[in-house]
């Protein structure tokens, strides 16, 4: 029973209390870049969710059955990032073939997902916590959804902001950062949530 509670707490902490963008401040470059239109934000969020969950599972398998057994843990950074980069490029090729429309709205940012700190950050934290396979999958999915939630909220706000005249120095990234800061304050409120 408490294994199930553990899973629920992982999912909730991934999405709300420990949001990858607003609490751990990882994966901010695409977060600031893509969040202009809600439609492309949804696309980007789903792509990141897919990449994070698949890559954290693959990295977990790679770590436990290869790196850990041979005690070459120091190579984990290289192995993980190699897997992530290749996965993103494969996603890029497959997406271009299957749905050019979705690829159109995400085109520029697929390459950025590789350097997205959230993906490698999740892979590393999953290994550090020593979770088992199913927990890893749930963490990856919940962190990806957390990223998507933050991205869609941000896109909604920034679309509204485009209508008002913002003082000249704040136009563009500064106002996005300040908005993200205020959103982070709101998400900080979730940290009171506990599951005992």
């Amino acid at each position, binding site marked *: 029973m408490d294994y199930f509670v553990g899973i629920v707490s992982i999912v909730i902490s991934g999405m709300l209390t420990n949001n990858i963008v607003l609490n751990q401040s990882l994966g901010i470059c695409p977060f600031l870049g893509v969040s202009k239109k809600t439609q492309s934000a949804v696309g980007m969020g789903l792509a990141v969710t897919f990449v994070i969950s698949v890559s954290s599972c693959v990295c977990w398998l790679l770590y436990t059955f290869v790196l850990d057994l041979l005690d070459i843990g120091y*190579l984990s950074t*290289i192995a993980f990032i*190699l897997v992530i980069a290749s996965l993103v490029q494969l996603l890029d090729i497959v997406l271009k073939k299957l749905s050019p429309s979705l690829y159109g709205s995400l085109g520029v940012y697929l390459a950025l997902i590789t350097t997205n700190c959230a993906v490698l950050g999740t892979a590393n934290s999953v290994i550090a916590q*020593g979770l088992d396979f199913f927990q890893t999958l749930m963490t990856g999915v919940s962190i990806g959804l957390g990223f998507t939630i933050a991205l869609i909220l941000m896109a909604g706000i920034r679309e509204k902001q485009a209508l008002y005249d913002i003082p000249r120095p704040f136009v563009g990234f500064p106002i996005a950062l300040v908005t993200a800061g205020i959103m982070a304050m709101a998400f900080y409120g979730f940290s009171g949530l506990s599951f005992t």
Partner: protein
Amino acid sequence: MNKSIVNALKSVAVLVCVSVVCVAVLAVCNMYFPKYTPTLDRATAERINAICPTGVTDGEAFDKKYIVMLGSDDHGVDLDKYNKSNKSKKAEILAVYGEPKGENAFSYIIESSSTGRDGDIVILIAYRDAVIVGAAVKKQGESYYNKLPAELFDFLTGKSGDVDLGAEFGKTGATLSLNAINRAVNLSNDFAITYNSAIRNSMTDMASAAETNEKGEAVEL
């Protein structure tokens, strides 16, 4: 062999040789770089004296060998082999110190470590007949360390065998660090129980040897 196969092989060749060169450099460095080997320096002696008082000042305890580092030949245990066999526990025993003489004679201190949220946490636990008499953290880089309950180490004194800190303190802000400390404590308790007699005998021989040459010195004087 059509064009795409040739291209594929070319990129495979390039990527493989780039990664081979990089990993070779790293592997060689990893072998020849000095690893963190615990040594009995003054600071460690002070900490040990704090959790398991030898009855003399820290400086004296260090100089006069009240606190001694027990090598594997003393207690007959190969630490690396022991750590390898306990891989699943995700914690390691780094060193064993002993106090052949002084107030808490024949008590020993085990230094064990486990990876927390931001790197390794190294803790020192003092035992007397496999029962904890004191514990403290030697080295840690945890960003949420101040979230850990203050009375954590007091709770440990008097305990032996497996301990469950999570049940005792519930959800603290630093669960990862708490789990790491928990794993390190359990492993060193386990080590203490299995090798208590071995360490004790080695310390008694050491103490008697120390007495003989001390008497010898007295005689020469």
